């Protein structure tokens, strides 16, 4: 992975930077010892590592502002970090950068049930936002699978999704306001507890900007009352095409399930061997979940079963109680763990139009033969967000490179099919160099112009999202 060469002038000023930061932060909030900065050398994309110059852990928006002002003054790049769970290398440092972690900012600032909003500091984890409103039976809807660990700051940076976004939307649809600090230290308030912010939709641009426009320190999030209940049905098919057609028919029927998950045969087999959930041995498997009261659930599941039966399923299993529901989800939820048992794997995240599903799966099978690596597919079928898992052996020389080349081909295929490179993980460094497959240079220029407006000197997370060659002139000029 190519990263910009560290600026020797910045490296030479480390002692001066530390002494200036000491006037702002407590000593234990500045991590500059070379052994200790290792803790920040990577995020969940562990194939790439580089310890930062130093890391800071501010506790307030004011401290974030002061830190950024100093770094701006001294021309030091800053890489914001939530919990470091990015699969795309969004928080990967360079040797001349300061990691700005928001982990110590995890308070709930206000819980407002009548207005259905919660305001939190962004170091708070996704699941603990729901935890804070659980006693009143409320929840925060976006549910990335890393929700136990991932921070709201990172969710906002990547516009994270989850299994239930077919009904509830992704982060951007549930984010009402932010307090954000620009690279020059300016504190900006956008939106709030009211439903639409005035003027240009800057909030919409911040969400998903991968920490390149500002550091979000506080967020107002929409909370909802939990549904009365939820129940899944499992449907097995003898071909991917038929399973895809069934998904389309369910959606056309007017039912909006909260989740439609799809697994192909390699994935079913691996999950079954690992979790013994009792899955049928078939080509494709759907898990469809609906919500509501008992009667509403039964009504919707009856309609879904009726549609599924028109497609000759090899298996149709409705959960009769909570235990059976848990068994249906067990295999799916352990898919990644199951893969990890067998092999090293790389998880992709392209999205495709649901209608191209059979074509894309067939083509992935052909590519798997060509590259000589196995692939298992598990994905959110309702919204076309695929998660192909490519299996490789990290200890075998050349295997990682082959895997990456295979992954790049799959993502290009997603774009060709009318989809995109990433549905919920973000571009980071991982997909940076593929951006010109989805967008023209002119399309990217418009995005770079936004970065120019928010961070004219290109100091915030500068080596991400865009191909380095495209941003080089801007980074060097700054």
């Amino acid at each position, binding site marked *: 992975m190519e990263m910009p060469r560290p600026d020797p002038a910045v490296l030479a000023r480390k002692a001066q930077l530390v002494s200036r930061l000491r006037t702002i932060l407590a000593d234990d909030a500045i991590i500059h010892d070379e052994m200790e900065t290792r803790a920040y050398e990577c995020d969940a994309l562990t194939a790439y590592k580089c310890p930062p110059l130093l890391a800071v852990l501010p506790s307030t928006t004011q401290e974030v502002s002061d830190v950024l002002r100093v770094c701006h003054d001294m021309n030091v790049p800053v890489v914001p970090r939530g919990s470091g769970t990015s699969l795309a290398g969004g928080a990967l440092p360079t040797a001349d950068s300061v990691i700005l972690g928001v982990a110590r900012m995890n308070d709930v600032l206000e819980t407002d049930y009548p207005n259905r909003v919660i305001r939190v500091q962004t170091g708070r984890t996704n699941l603990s936002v729901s935890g804070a409103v659980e006693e009143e039976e409320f929840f925060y809807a976006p549910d990335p699978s890393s929700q136990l660990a991932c921070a709201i700051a990172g969710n906002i940076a990547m516009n994270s999704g989850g299994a239930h976004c077919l009904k509830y939307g992704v982060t951007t649809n549930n984010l009402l306001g932010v307090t954000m600090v620009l690279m020059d230290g300016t504190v900006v308030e956008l939106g709030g507890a009211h439903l639409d912010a005035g003027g240009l939709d800057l909030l919409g641009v911040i969400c998903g900007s991968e920490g390149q426009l500002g550091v979000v320190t506080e967020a107002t999030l929409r909370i909802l009352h939990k549904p009365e209940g939820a129940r899944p049905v499992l449907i097995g098919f003898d071909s991917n095409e038929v399973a895809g057609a069934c998904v389309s028919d369910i959606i056309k029927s007017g039912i909006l399930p909260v989740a439609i998950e799809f697994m192909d045969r390699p994935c079913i087999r691996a999950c079954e061997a690992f979790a013994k959930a009792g899955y049928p041995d078939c080509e494709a498997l759907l898990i469809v979940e609906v919500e509501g009261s008992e009667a509403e659930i039964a009504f919707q599941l009856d309609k879904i079963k009726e549609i599924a039966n028109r497609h000759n399923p090899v298996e149709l299993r409705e959960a009769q109680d909570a235990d059976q529901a848990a068994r249906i989800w067990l295999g799916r939820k352990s898919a990644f763990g199951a893969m990890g048992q067998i092999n090293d794997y790389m998880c992709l995240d392209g999205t495709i139009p649901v209608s191209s599903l059979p074509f894309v799966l067939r083509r992935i099978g052909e590519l798997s033969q060509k590259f000589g690596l196995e692939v298992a597919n598990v994905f959110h079928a309702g919204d076309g967000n695929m998660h192909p898992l490519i299996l490789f052996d990290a200890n075998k020389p050349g295997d990682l490179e082959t895997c990456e080349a295979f992954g790049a081909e799959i993502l290009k295929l997603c774009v060709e099919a009318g989809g995109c490179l990433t549905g919920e993980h973000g571009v980071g460094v991982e997909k940076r160099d593929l951006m010109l497959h*989805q967008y023209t240079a002119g399309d990217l220029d418009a995005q770079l112009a936004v970065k120019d407006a928010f961070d004219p000197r290109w100091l915030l997370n500068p080596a991400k999202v865009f191909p380095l060659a495209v941003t080089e002139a801007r980074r060097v000029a700054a």
Partner: protein
Amino acid sequence: MKMICPKSEAALAEFVAGADGPLAVTGGGTQGVALSGARVSLCGLSGVELYEPGALTLVVQSGTPVAKIEALLAKENQQLAFEPRDMRVLIGTQGDPTIGGVFATNLSGPRRIQAGATRDSLLGVRYVDGAGQCVKNGGRVMKNVTGYDLVKLMAGSYGTLGILTEVALKVLPRPETVGTLRFVGLTPVQAVAAMSKALGSPYDVTGAAHIPGTEPVTLIRLEGFEASVQYRIAELHAVLAEFGEVHAEMGTDVWRDVRDVKPLHAASGNIWRISVKPSDAPEVLAQLEPEAAMMDWGGGLIWAALPESQDARLAVEGVAGHATLLRGDGFPRFHPESAPVAKLANRLRAKFDPRGILNPGLMR
């Protein structure tokens, strides 16, 4: 005045690149926005590019009339989830609303509280910027975090950052049944309390509006399969018992009136649209003492008819929110931005429209 009506994105781009003065860009011209400069209409860019009911996606050219899209979707029992408001009677305009205009203004209908804002349905855009460059952002799939989200930036920018030429959007199933709970005689404070209670229940409320007056009416909407709507009406009935007598109606048209802000149609003076936190709405309404008013979004959106001399923004001072002047004169249309936000917005405008020719001054 002469009106340019390009037949293709390329022709529009060429025209913009060669323009030597301000351009007044409109869709159907139904928002009543006062513009100066050479008139550019998008009516030449009309038509459906792609519609996949099984994927809930639609791609259309920006000048396509909303009515045409709604008719197309209705054939597949689908709809635009955000319920675009028809502003013609309220504002006193003619013409056919276009889908590009709907996204350029980002005015969401009653279902915003459940299905999201207009901008939340927008998946991808093509546009021509102020320099005449054609740009694409987003796509036609529902989950897409590839690069910055300029789709949101374009929504609600009133054509000042770029001229939309094509939009990809998410559509949703049309509910089988609509049911409405109607309370009579609640004060604004009681109404917001009732609406908040309904919206904070598990019963998936898709509309919550209050029309004050001599006989105030509070409306709560439920949608879905008939048995489910009946069930939830009964449950909500019990939850809201403290708010007095309630009537349940099925298949009512009253939501079209809420969508198009009918309670203000006969009012004189200026028309304001005020976005606040629902719990702040009764106090704002009390301060305004409007000739006619309506609360939508459970209280989060106030429509008010006020005398031409009255500044609605005084009532929003001290609470989070903003006020937009949609009909009339005497005040800027948009709420003033804070200094840091204005600085960012100005820098963005300078990048997207370096010559300042796209609907200049409209959003200032």
